[in-house]
C-alpha cells in the first residue's frame, strides 16, 4: 500500500497512448459532472485532441434564467409575477431575496444536471470556488446571479479580464465591502483577497507586503453600487494620492488620478499584479489540483506547473490554451491519476442524476414542481457539505485548497453515510411531487450501460466499468453475480431467463423480479468506497 500520494514524471507532451473507454471516461469525469454512457460513446470516436477541443469549445450560455417559482399562499413577490424571471428586478427586501437565492440554487442544479458536452459548468464551479463569494452574504439574489454569469460567460476566456470584471462586480463589491470603501476609511478586504486568493496567492513566491494590501485598497476606493445595482465609480470617494508598492512589485508607483480617471488606477493595479509570474503559477497549481490531483512536488512543479504558467503568460492569460495543454497531456492520462479524485458532493449528486438520466419536470412550463424537486437535490448537497454558491468563506471550500488532505476533507463519518443514503434513496423511492416522480430507472440504466444486459457477466462488467474507476476483484464480481443476479443459483441462465422474460412480457411481477435485483446490485456498487472516486 502506498503511504503517500505519488506524482508522475510525465510532462505536457501530447498524449499518444490508446484512446479507450478508460481514458475517455477519465477526461469526462474531470471536465463534466460524470460521464453518461452516450458521452463516452460520443468521445470515444474522436480521440484525445478532438475531444479536448470540443469540451473546451464553450459557447455563451443561452440557458433561460431562474424564475419566480416561489409565490405561495403565504408569500407573493410584489415585483415579479410567478413564472417570470427575477434576475433584473432590483429589490433589497430580505424575504424576497431569500426566496430568490433559493430559486437560484435550484436553477443551478437544473443547469448542472442538464449540462452540455462542454467544460463550462465544471469550470464555472471552479471559478465560483476561486472567487469564493457567498450568496447569503451578498444577500441580493440578482447580484449573485450576475456575479456567477460573469464567471460562466468567461470561464474559458481571459483570466485578466475576468478579474477586472469581478473587481467592479456589484456582487463582489458587496461581498468584500468594496462598495463601502472610501478615501477616509479604505476597507482592505478586497485589496487583500485580490492578491492573496484571486491572483498572486500565498505560496512561497508571493512576497507582497501589508503595505501593498493597504495601497491596493486605496487604489480601489471609489467603487460603489448605484440604486439600480450597477457599479459606479465615485471620484469623490477615491483616494487620489500616489500609491507606491513594495519591491515585490518592483516599487511600482500608481499615480493618483482625479475624476473618472480614478477608475483607471484599477486597471493599472491589475497590470502591475499580472506582471508577477506568481499569478500564472498560482492559478495553474489551482487548475492542476482541480482537474488532476492535489499532490504537487518539485517534479510536477518543473514538468507541469512552470511550463503551464509560461503558456498562460505567453497567451496573455487566455484560459483555454492552458486547459488544452493540460487535458491533452501524457501527464493527465498517466494511470497513476485515473480514478484518484474523491468526488465533491456536487460531482456525487449531479453525476448520479446524469448517469441515470433522471428526468425532472420542465423547468419552464412546470416550474413549480420542477424547482420543488431540484430543491431536494440542493438539500442533499447542503447535507453533504457543499451548499451551492455558499462556500464557508471567501477561500472557497477547504477540500479544494486545504493541505495536506484536500479532497479527502469531503469525506467523514457523517458525510459518507449521507452519500450512500442518497444513492440508496434515488434507487429505492426517489422523490415525488404532485405525482411526478424522480427515481432511477434501473432497467433503462442496464440497457444504456450494457450492450447485452441479459448476460449477467457482461452486466456486472459494464456496471463496474461505467460506475467505478478502480479495479474490482473478480471474486467480488462473481459473488455479486451469484448472490444478487442469480439469487444464489449456479447457472447464468437464471438471470438471462428473468431478463428475457421481462423484455418479452413486461408484467409487474416480471418487472419486479428484474428491478429488485438490479436495485440491490446498484446499491451495493454505489455503497462501495470505490464509487466515491472519479
Amino acid at each position, binding site marked *: 500500500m502506498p503511504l503517500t*500520494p505519488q506524482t508522475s514524471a510525465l510532462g505536457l507532451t501530447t498524449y499518444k497512448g490508446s484512446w479507450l473507454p478508460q481514458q475517455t471516461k477519465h477526461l469526462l469525469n474531470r471536465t463534466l459532472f460524470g460521464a453518461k454512457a452516450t458521452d463516452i460513446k460520443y468521445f470515444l470516436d474522436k480521440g484525445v485532441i478532438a475531444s479536448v477541443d470540443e469540451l473546451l469549445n464553450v459557447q455563451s450560455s443561452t440557458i433561460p434564467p431562474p424564475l419566480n417559482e416561489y409565490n405561495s399562499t403565504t408569500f407573493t413577490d410584489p415585483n415579479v409575477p410567478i413564472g417570470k424571471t427575477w434576475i433584473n428586478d432590483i429589490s433589497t427586501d430580505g424575504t424576497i431575496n431569500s426566496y430568490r437565492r433559493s430559486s437560484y440554487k435550484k436553477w443551478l442544479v437544473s443547469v448542472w444536471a442538464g449540462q452540455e458536452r462542454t467544460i463550462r459548468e465544471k469550470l464555472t464551479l471552479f471559478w465560483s470556488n476561486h472567487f469564493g463569494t457567498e450568496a447569503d452574504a451578498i444577500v441580493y439574489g440578482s447580484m449573485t446571479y450576475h456575479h456567477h454569469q460573469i464567471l460562466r460567460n468567461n470561464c474559458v476566456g481571459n483570466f485578466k479580464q475576468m478579474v477586472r470584471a469581478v473587481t467592479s462586480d456589484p456582487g463582489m463589491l458587496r461581498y468584500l465591502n468594496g462598495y463601502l470603501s472610501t478615501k477616509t476609511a479604505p476597507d482592505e478586504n478586497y485589496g487583500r483577497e485580490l492578491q492573496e486568493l484571486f491572483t498572486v496567492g500565498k505560496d512561497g513566491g508571493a512576497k507582497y507586503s501589508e503595505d501593498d494590501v493597504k495601497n491596493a485598497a486605496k487604489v480601489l476606493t471609489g467603487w460603489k453600487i448605484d440604486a439600480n445595482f450597477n457599479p459606479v465609480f465615485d471620484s469623490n470617494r477615491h483616494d487620489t494620492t500616489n500609491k507606491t508598492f513594495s519591491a515585490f512589485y518592483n516599487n511600482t508607483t500608481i499615480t493618483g488620478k482625479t475624476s473618472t480617471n480614478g477608475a483607471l488606477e484599477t486597471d493599472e493595479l491589475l497590470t502591475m499584479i499580472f506582471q508577477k509570474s506568481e499569478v500564472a503559477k498560482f492559478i495553474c497549481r489551482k487548475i492542476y489540483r482541480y482537474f488532476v490531483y492535489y499532490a504537487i512536488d518539485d517534479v510536477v512543479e518543473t514538468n507541469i506547473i512552470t511550463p503551464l504558467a509560461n503558456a498562460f503568460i505567453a497567451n496573455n492569460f487566455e484560459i483555454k490554451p492552458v486547459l488544452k495543454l493540460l487535458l491533452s497531456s501524457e501527464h493527465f492520462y498517466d494511470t497513476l491519476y485515473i480514478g*484518484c479524485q474523491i468526488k465533491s458532493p456536487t460531482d456525487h449528486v449531479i453525476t448520479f442524476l446524469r448517469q441515470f438520466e433522471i428526468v425532472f419536470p420542465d423547468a419552464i412550463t412546470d416550474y413549480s414542481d420542477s424547482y420543488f424537486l431540484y430543491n431536494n437535490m440542493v438539500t442533499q448537497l447542503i447535507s453533504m457539505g457543499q451548499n451551492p454558491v455558499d462556500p464557508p468563506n471567501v477561500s472557497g471550500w477547504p477540500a479544494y485548497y486545504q493541505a495536506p488532505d484536500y479532497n*479527502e476533507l469531503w469525506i467523514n463519518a457523517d458525510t459518507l453515510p449521507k452519500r450512500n443514503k442518497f444513492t440508496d434513496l434515488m434507487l429505492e423511492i426517489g422523490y415525488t411531487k404532485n405525482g411526478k416522480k424522480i427515481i432511477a430507472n434501473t432497467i433503462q440504466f442496464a440497457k444504456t450501460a450494457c450492450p447485452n444486459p441479459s448476460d449477467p457477466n457482461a452486466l456486472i462488467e459494464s456496471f463496474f466499468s461505467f460506475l467505478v474507476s*478502480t479495479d474490482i476483484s473478480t471474486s467480488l464480481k462473481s459473488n455479486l453475480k*451469484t448472490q*444478487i443476479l442469480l439469487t*444464489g443459483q449456479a447457472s447464468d441462465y437464471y438471470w438471462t431467463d428473468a431478463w428475457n422474460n421481462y423484455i418479452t412480457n413486461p408484467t409487474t*411481477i416480471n418487472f419486479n423480479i428484474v428491478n429488485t435485483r438490479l436495485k440491490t446490485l446498484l446499491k451495493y456498487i454505489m455503497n462501495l468506497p*470505490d464509487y466515491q472516486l472519479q
Partner: protein
Amino acid sequence: MERKKFIRNSLALLAPTMISGNPIHILQDHPLLNTELLGTSSTDKVLVIIQLSGGNDGLNTVVPLSNYNNYYNARNNIALPEKKILKLTGNNATGIHPSMTAFQKLFLDGKLNIVQSVGYPQPSFSHFRATDIWMSGSSSDQYLNTGWAGRYLNYQYPGYPDAYPNSDHPDPIAIQIGSLASLTCQGPAVNMALSISDPSSFYNLIEGTDAVVSNTNAGYELSFLRSIAKQTNQYTVRIKKASDSVKQQVTYPNNSLAAQLKIVARLIKGGLGTKVYMVNYGGFDTHSGQVVLTDTTTGAHANLLKGLSDSVAAFQSDLSGLEIEDRVIGMTYSEFGRRIKSNASVGTDHGSAAPLFLFGKNVRGGIFGDNPTIPPTATSNDNIPYQFDFRSIYNTILQNWFCVSQVAEIEILLKQFPIMPLINASVCGANNKNSIFSKESLIYNYPNPFSNLTKIEFKTQGGHTILQLLNGAGIVVKLLVDTTYNFAGTNSYNLYGAGLSTGVYYIRMQNGDKIFVKAIIKI
C-alpha cells in the same frame, strides 16, 4: 429486561452530559454496562434462518417409507435404497437421507421438527420469484417490497434506522452472513439487516486487517475511504467485541454453512442483541448429477445434506456448550422442492412443496403432517401438494417464539395463518397459541376415482373453513369452500368432473388450526 433498563437509566442520570455528547460510544465502553449488556437473558430470543438455495429435493431428504414403492417407481435412478434410509425413533412411516445421521440423533433428542410438504397455493417454479415469495411472505399473485422478517423487526423496532443504534439497542437488529442483504429483512424504509456479505471481510473486521489496494493514487485514496467507511459502521466495535469475547467453541465441520453458523454462535454468545441471523447454503439446484448412479446414497445432494445436518448438529452442540441453547431456534427453507419424478440426467427439476426443518432445544420435536402422496406412476408434471402454508411456520415463530400478539401478526403477515404446535408452550407462557394437531381423517369422498361427480364430505370443528382443489402439479385450481360455520359437524360439497382433465387431484382442507390433504383421482 427491566433490570437492564434500570441500570441504563441510572447511568444516564449519573453522567447526563457525557450521554448527550456521544451516547453509543460512551455506553458501549462503560465496563459496568458492558457486562450487563453482554449478559444473556432468556427473553433475548434469536431466530437463525438457513436458506438452502436452489430448491432442495424434499423427497430424497425426508423419504415417505410408507409409500416406498411409488417413491421408487417415480425416481428409480436416484431413489435411495429402502434399507439405507435412516429411521426416525417412533416413526416407521418416514425416514431421512442416509447422510443425515446427525439429524437422526437430533431428532432422537427431541431437538428437530420435520414439517411435511410446506408450500403455498399457485407455487412458482422460478428460483427468483419463488425466493421472493418465501422472503417477502407474499402470496403467489402478490408482490411485496418488504420481507416478512423486515416487517416483524420494523414492528418491534419502529423508526429504524434513524434513532439506531441507541442505548437500548446498541447492536444490529438482524445480521445476514454469507450473502448480501436479502429481501427477508427488507423493512418499509431500509433493510433491517447488517450484511456481512463476504466472510473474509468479516474476518478482516475481526482481525483488523485491511483489504489490498492498487499502488496508484486511486489506491491511496481508496484506503482512506475504506478507513472512513469502517468508522461509519457503528456496529463494528460491538461485533468485534462480541466476537472477541468467545474463546472456546466446538469443532465445526469444514463447509461454508458451518463457518457461518460458527460465527452466529459466537456473536450470540458474545452478547449481541440481534434477533435474526440469516445464513446461506447453496447448490441445491440438482437438475443433473444429483446422485452417483452406482451408489445413490452418495453424490452432490448427499454431500449437501450431510453438510447441513453435520453443521446444524455442531451448531446445536456449540449452543449447548455455550449455555445459550434456550435462546435460539433455527429454521431451514428452500425456495421450492423438486419434482416427484426424476429426469434422465440423474437429477430432478423444479417442484413445489417440500419438508422444512426447525431445530433447537425449544422446538417440540417430531414429524408434523403426513407423508406426501405419490401416484403409482408419476408423470413429469406431478408435484407434491402443499399441506402447510409456509406463512403458518412464520406465524408460529412470530407468535410462539417471539411472542408477538395476534394483532401484530396481521400487520406482519397481512392475513391470518394457522399456528402449528411446533414450539414449546412454555416459551411464550400464557400467550402461547399452540393448538392441537389432529391426525384424524377429515375428508371422505365417493366415488373415488370419479368421472362426472364425486361427493366430498368434510368434518369441520366450526369456524373458518376452506376447501381447495389442487391439481397434480400442486397448484390450487379451484377454491371449493370458503365459509365460516357456526357449528361443528360434517358438511358436503359436490365436485363435478366437467372441465377437469383426468389425473390425480388433491383436496386440501384448512379449518382453524387443522389441516388435511386427501388425494382423489379423476378418470
